[in-house]
């Protein structure tokens, strides 16, 4: 058994998730928001791998889930950055406070 207790990993993942959430909510730059989302996804993956290691080490479900999360994160970043580039081309800014096309 690994010498590091499960709660340490969970605490670290909680902290990382909170930092990512704050980044997502507080950033002005759209790329910064994407970075916050990536931090949160990483926190979730740490949790998945930690649970796999400590609760079901004889199965592989946790690792498989983590790999799928990484796959979805990759496509999400590709689409997100394409959207940001398209917005930049049209509005010449990626400051989210100036992107208000849907504002009534």
């Amino acid at each position, binding site marked *: 058994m690994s010498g*590091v207790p499960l709660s340490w990993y969970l605490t670290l993942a909680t902290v990382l998730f909170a930092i990512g959430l704050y980044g997502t909510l507080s950033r002005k730059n759209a790329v910064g928001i994407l970075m916050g989302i990536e931090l949160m996804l990483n926190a979730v993956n740490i949790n998945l791998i930690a649970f796999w290691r400590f*609760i079901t080490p004889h199965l592989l479900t946790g690792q498989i889930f983590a790999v799928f999360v990484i796959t979805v994160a990759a496509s999400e970043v590709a689409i997100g950055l394409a959207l940001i580039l398209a917005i930049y081309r049209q509005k010449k800014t990626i400051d989210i406070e100036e992107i208000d096309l849907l504002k009534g």
Partner: protein
Amino acid sequence: MPPFENLPTDLVLQGIFLLVAGLIVVAAVAVVTLRNIFHSALALILCFSAVAGLYILLEAPFVAAVQVLIYVGAISVLILFAVMLTERVMDPKMGARNEQWWLGLLLTAIAATGLGAIVGFAPWPLSKAPIINDQITALGKEFLTTYVLPFEVASLLLLMALLGAIIIAREKEGG
């Protein structure tokens, strides 16, 4: 004699964990607070690499390799490209935080308290079972038997993301 031979393994592992965890937290804080978004992206690469180290500590070498290849190798480069293509990096007018950052901080505090309470109070059914041997072969078998449908859907998702990214980001000349 190596200098660390007398130290108990648990203590060494915990020390490594604390080092890696400290690196992750410092890098993540830098990602969300630095004013220069390019520096944030560089800190993000550091954070991803440290998380890969954590996976090795958890004895999941395949996931660590995937983390390095996809996060450090692909996603970071994509983000760096997007930063350089869109941002006037040194523009001092563009602050790091939006007007509602304090609301975000409040919400983060609430979410972190909730998650912390769950981590603290939930009883986790720890297992003493030995770790599965020959993980990578077993993973390949699982992907092509039990998880073959999600595996194929993931391929479809990647294809869609590829096409969608090209269509969205393309210059609108003829349509």
